[in-house]
C-alpha cells in the first residue's frame, strides 16, 4: 500500500547569519521500502539516524529532497498543496515529542475534534461521542477532554497524540516513538489497540521505536537504520532470529532484560559515533564495525537480498555481496 522509493532528505545547516558556510546533513539517504495494508514496518536505529525525518518526509511534512512516495497506488510526492491536503486524511503521524506537538492554547477536546470537523467525519453530534470513546480507548478519562496539554503527564500527552492520529482512521500511520513514554501496562494496551485496529481496518504502520521488544511484537517487517540509510530490512521473525548486519547484531545484544539476574552479553561497539554531517566514506558503519574489511572504507555497499525472492531480507553490507558469500557463511556461523 505504501511504497517509498529512494527517498532522501538533506538538511542545510549551520553557516553564519547569511547562510555562508552551510553544510549538508544527509538525514535520510536513499531509502526504499514498502508496507502492505494491515502491516507494520518497525523502524529501529541509533538515535539521530534519521528515523523521524524519514517518517516526516514520507508524509511530506518535510519536503523530501528526492525520491517518491506512493500511498494506495497514488503518488504523495510531486502533488500540489491542495491535492496533498485532501490526502492528509489517509495518513497520520504520532509525534515523538507529544508536548511540543500539542497546541498549548487548545484543550484536548479542541485538539481531538478538529480532525473530525475538518474532514467532516460523522454527524456533528456523533463526533463528541466518538472523541470520548477514543480518549477512553487510549486509557484516559473523558474528564481529561477539557484540560490543556500542560496539565498532563508525559505519558498522558503521548496518548493524546495517539488518539489524535486515530481519530481520522487513516490508512497509514507513522508512529514515532508512540509508546516510549508509557508505562508497560498502558503500553501493552496501546500495542494491543494497534493490532486490533490493524486487523479491523487494515491500517498500515511505520512504527519507529527504540524498544526492540515492542518492535518485535508489533511489526511484520523491521527496518534498521544507520546514519540515514536503511541497512537491513526483513520480516520481523527473520530479522530477530537471524540479524545479519553487524549493526543490527550489536543492537540486539544491547537490549536490557527486565531481570536483574541476567547479565547481558552485549556487543560493545568501539570507535566514535560518526556524525551525519560528515559521514565516513564507504560504508557508514565501518568505523565501528567489528567485521570491517578494507573495501568497506572505500566502497559504499549495495543492498543485497540474502533471503528468498518472496521473503526478501535486504542487507546493505559488503559481507553479503555475492562475491563474499563464502565469508558470509562463516560470519553466520559465528553469530
Amino acid at each position: 500500500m505504501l511504497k517509498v522509493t529512494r527517498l532522501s532528505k538533506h538538511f542545510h545547516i549551520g553557516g553564519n547569519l547569511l547562510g555562508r558556510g552551510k553544510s549538508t546533513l544527509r538525514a535520510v539517504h536513499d531509502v526504499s521500502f514498502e508496507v502492505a495494508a494491515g502491516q507494520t514496518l518497525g523502524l529501529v536505529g541509533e538515535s539521530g539516524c534519521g528515523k523521524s525525518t524519514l517518517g516526516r518526509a514520507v508524509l511530506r511534512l518535510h519536503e523530501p529532497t528526492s525520491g517518491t512516495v506512493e500511498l494506495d497506488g497514488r503518488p504523495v510526492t510531486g502533488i500540489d498543496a491542495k491535492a496533498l491536503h485532501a490526502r492528509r486524511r489517509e495518513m497520520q503521524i504520532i509525534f515523538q515529542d507529544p508536548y511540543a506537538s500539542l497546541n498549548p492554547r487548545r484543550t484536548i477536546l479542541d485538539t481531538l475534534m478538529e480532525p473530525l470537523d475538518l474532514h467532516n467525519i460523522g454527524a456533528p453530534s456523533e463526533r463528541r461521542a466518538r472523541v470520548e470513546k477514543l480518549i477512553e480507548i487510549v486509557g484516559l478519562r473523558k474528564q481529561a477532554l477539557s484540560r490543556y496539554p500542560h496539565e498532563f503527564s508525559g505519558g498522558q500527552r503521548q496518548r493524546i497524540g495517539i488518539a489524535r492520529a486515530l481519530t481520522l482512521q487513516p490508512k497509514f500511520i507513522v508512529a514515532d516513538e508512540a509508546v516510549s513514554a508509557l508505562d508497560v501496562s498502558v503500553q501493552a494496551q496501546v500495542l494491543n489497540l494497534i493490532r486490533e485496529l490493524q486487523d479491523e481496518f487494515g491500517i498500515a504502520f511505520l512504527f519507529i521505536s527504540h524498544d526492540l521488544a515492542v518492535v518485535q511484537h508489533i511489526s511484520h517487517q523491521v527496518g534498521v537504520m544507520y546514519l540515514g540509510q536503511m541497512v537491513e530490512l526483513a520480516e520481523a521473525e527473520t530479522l530477530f532470529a537471524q540479524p545479519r548486519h553487524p549493526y543490527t547484531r550489536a543492537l540486539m545484544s544491547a537490549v536490557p532484560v527486565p531481570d536483574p539476574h541476567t547479565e547481558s552479553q552485549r556487543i560493545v561497539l568501539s570507535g566514535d559515533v560518526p556524525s551525519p554531517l560528515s559521514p565516513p566514506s564507504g560504508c557508514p558503519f565501518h568505523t565501528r564495525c567489528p567485521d570491517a574489511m578494507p573495501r568497506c572504507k572505500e566502497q559504499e555497499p549495495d543492498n543485497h537480498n540474502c533471503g528468498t525472492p518472496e521473503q526478501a531480507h535486504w542487507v546493505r553490507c559488503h559481507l553479503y555481496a555475492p562475491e563474499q558469500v563464502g565469508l558470509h557463511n562463516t560470519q553466520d556461523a559465528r553469530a
Partner: protein
Amino acid sequence: MSEPLLKVRDLQVEFHTDKGVARALDGISFDVMPGETLGIVGESGCGKSVTSLAILGLIPSPPGRIVGGQILFQGQDLLSLSEREMRKVRGRDIAMIFQEPMTALDPVFTIATQMGEVLRRHQGLTRKQARQSAIDWLARVGIPSPERRIDDYPHQLSGGMRQRVMIAMALSCEPKLIIADEPTTALDVTIQAQVLEQIVKLSQDLGTAMMLITHDLGVVAQTCHRACVMYCGKLIEQSATGPLFAAPAHPYTAGLLASVPRIRTQRLDSLPTIAGTVPDLLHLPRGCRFVERCGQAIDLCHSAHPPLQGDEHSGHELACYNPVQGEVR
C-alpha cells in the same frame, strides 16, 4: 546503615484546576541512600514527574502547591529553604533530567551556552574550560562530533540528541543526586546502554545517587538497587530490585511485570495488560485506588486505602490488603 541522602516523608501535592482540586501526590514517602540508584516506576500519570519537581521546588505555583510533608536532603528540609538557598541546591546538589527535552531546552541559546552556563556556575570553570568540559560530557553520552554539535541550537538536534544533552548537562554538574525523568526513552538501546553505563560509572566514582524514573523495567532491573512502584499518587510497593522482580507482591506490580514486552521467539497475538484505566484524580474511589482494576480485591479494599507497611528486615514495603502470593512468572 548510613543516613539517607534524600528522605521524602508524606509528601502531598495538589493542583488547582477549574474543575476542582486534584491531589496528584497523596502522602509519598521514600528514601534515597548515597550512591544508590532508586528506580521509580508506575502508571503514566501517577505522579512521578510531580514528585521530582516537588523535590526541586519547581511545582508550578499556581496552580500547584505542596500541601504537606517533608523533603529532607542531607538532613535539611528543602521545603523550608528560601528560593535563594534552594538555588544553591539545584544543579549543584540535585540535578534533574527532564522528560521532554524539546521544550526543556531553551530554543534561542546554543547547547554550548546552556551547558557552559551551568558548568561555570557550579564548577567555577572559565568560559573556555566550561566549553571543553561540555564537549567532553557530550562525547561521553555518545553525541557524534560534539565539538561541532555543541554550537547547534536545540531544534537542530534529533530527539535523542536533545535528551542526551539534558543528560550531559545533569551529569556535568557532578551532583549528589540526579533525578532522571525517563532519561532514555528517546534513545536507542545501544546509546541507552552507553548512557546508563556512564551514569552508573559516575555514581560509582562520585557516589552520586540517582532517582531513575522510567517505564523500562529492563532498565530498572539492570541499573537500580531498589525500586518504588507508584500508582495514582500513592506509593504502593517498594523493595530491592531483585525481590521485587522475582516476587511482586502488589497486584499492580505483578500486572505491570506481566505486561512487559520481551523479545520472544514466538510472536504473541496480544500482550497481557491490566484491565481498566487509572481513576481520575478528581474522582478517586474511596478505598484502594487500584481497586477497580484489581483482580483480587477484597471488601476492605473498597472502603479504605491500605497503608504502606514495611518489613524492617527485608526493606520491602507494601500497601495492599491482599497481596499476590508467590512468584508470578
